[in-house]
């Protein structure tokens, strides 16, 4: 029987690390009152227990999920880990506990609070990832294309395949400013790496021209008599605008050019 305890697990923030927390919880028959990543701020006064990341233990837990619960449960846990949910670690622990008890049907127990929260968080993540397949904007440089996004969830792993498949012969970077990560692709390999800061030059004239053409298109396609900012806001909330070309003001280069011609 697992017991509620007032201990806080601190782990390295990786999926493997979290799996070790699960291991620890079962091994010591205790349920921590929180599981926090190293880097996350610790406001709690409760005693921390540092959980070491041990590949072996992690693998044992990871194998048990498809074996004892289901492949679908494994997918849900992996996705939930990429979500923005504050207490996702504890929820995953609780979900697995229930999974070991009820087996494969745990993923269908949508009326259960934990299962419900997890499936909503996963929905939120996959929705956001889908949005970014459309909202990503590349600036084209001589030898590569660059894009910056500020997602709430960790969407890069979910949009990786889509963009690598879309531009197989280009080199590109999608920089997730929120989580300081970047998807880097060069024909024909890709990686998601930690990046703290990005410095880029002003793009060239051709790039500026297409940016302006896109802004012109964006403005010309709207029908004035149907103007409906509220509807736009529902589909495309302001938080996305900052990184999208159509909402950025033209750079000096292009306005100078226009004045000259």
């Amino acid at each position, binding site marked *: 029987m697992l017991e509620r305890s007032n201990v806080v697990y601190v782990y390295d923030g990786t999926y493997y690390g979290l799996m070790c927390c699960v291991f620890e919880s079962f091994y010591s028959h205790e349920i921590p009152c929180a599981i926090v990543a190293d880097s996350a701020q610790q406001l709690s006064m409760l005693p921390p227990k540092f959980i070491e990341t041990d590949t072996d233990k992690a693998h044992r837990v990871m194998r048990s999920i498809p074996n004892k619960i289901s492949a679908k449960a494994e997918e849900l846990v992996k996705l939930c880990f990429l979500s923005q949910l504050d207490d996702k670690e504890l929820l995953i622990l609780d979900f697995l506990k229930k999974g070991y008890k009820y087996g494969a049907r745990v993923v269908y127990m949508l009326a259960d609070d934990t299962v419900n929260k997890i499936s909503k968080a996963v929905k939120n993540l996959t929705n956001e990832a889908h949005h970014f397949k459309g909202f990503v904007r590349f600036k084209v440089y001589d030898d590569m294309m660059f894009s910056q996004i500020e997602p709430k969830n960790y969407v890069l792993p979910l949009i990786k395949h*889509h963009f690598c498949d*879309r531009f197989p012969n280009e080199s590109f970077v999608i920089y997730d400013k929120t989580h300081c990560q970047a998807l880097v692709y060069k024909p024909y390999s890709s990686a998601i790496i930690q990046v703290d800061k990005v410095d880029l030059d002003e793009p060239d004239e051709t790039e500026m021209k297409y940016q302006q053409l896109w802004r012109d*298109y964006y403005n010309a396609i*709207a*029908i004035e008599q149907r103007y409906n900012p509220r509807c736009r806001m529902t589909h495309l909330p302001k938080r996305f605008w900052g990184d999208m070309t159509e909402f950025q003001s033209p750079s000096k280069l292009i306005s100078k050019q226009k004045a000259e011609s």
Partner: protein
Amino acid sequence: MDVFEKLKILTGAAKYDVACTSSGVDRSSGGVGVGNSTACGICHSFSADGRCISLLKILMTNYCIYNCSYCVNRRTNDIQRAAFTPRELADLTMNFYKRNYIEGLFLSSGIIRNPDYTCEQIIATLEILRNEYGFKGYIHAKAIPGASAELLHKLGVLADRMSVNIELPSQKSLQLLAPDKSKENILAPMGVIRDKIRENTTDLVRYNHAPKFAPAGQSTQMIVGATPDTDYQILNLTESLYNKYKLKRVFFSAYMPIGDNPLLPSKDTKPPLLREHRLYQADWLLRFYGFKASELLDEKHQNFNPLVDPKCSWALSHLDQFPVDVNTAEYETLLRVPGIGVNSARRIIIARRSCLLRFEHLKKLGVVLKRAQYFITCSGKITEGLKITEDIIIRNMITQSGMRFADELIQSGGYSQLSLFNDNTKVTAGDVMKCLSGQM
């Protein structure tokens, strides 16, 4: 004329076409060329009118030899004209696509010289994109009525989706407003496309490498509110297009008054946006909810109720079929409950396998209880303390858009008080219309 000018003119001329979806085909780049395609479609932006921008929606040219009264590009309209070359358009598409502005191209055109020539221009553009640039993104091409079957075939092999716009929902309206077009003229290419798609499916079974013909199917568009045609006529036509011509989508476009032709609504008429919205809701019911057009409207009730959505309207006039129990009702039955949609119905089916559902569960599953509670029971029980009178139900069914509509009407002095349905008669679309026009 530079490309900036052309883009502005030819986008402005294309914007009244509502279709912008990029759905219906899954295709990987396979590592060669540029681009892929996702069956569910991807929205890249939303314009100030709240509509999705997925494709570069543009005309080859806005010169036109025809003179359809409802169209900005009609021959006699005094506007600036422009034309793209196939190369210019293909380059623009590639450059927008690479920057991930768009999912692909939606190319249409005014009729320049003759239908065949126009169609050839579109084909030339798509050939550059597909064959020269290796473009694997989405292409929606307008099939030009009157172009030869051979050209239509060429076009269909290059495009993912094709469309022929019906524009006006009846032959009479067509005669009046688009004298150069006829019903046959529009339906003929639709039939050709349907048959080619059918042939293609069997070809694909036989030889793996048969080129795909319009794999994302065909769609059409109808203008709403330019003519006196009723919702009943429009919805029936929509249904038969789905059945007879196997269309993937029928789009509706609220008429934007553009000229002072005495045959058309005057320039200060407001576009019937709510009506367009109701038609889309009904279209949804046909496609995903198993409704038939004849269940939603009939000879006596030819227009949708502006206050409540079509499903509610149906439910209110079929109260004898309710309540249904969420723990036992079939999926199809759940779908007919106001406040339960495709997603929540699916979730109910899944969740009730592991426990008996109670009202507090339903909210978590995405059911809109405010509306659904009057039509459902949970294991035989209704919501505790729920008062059910027809009046209360109706008040809770009125949608936000319906409310705004009513507000506007009151403000404009249309009628002084919104006292609806205090007698015992069943509510129908016609009643509400009467009520709104002050006859009740």
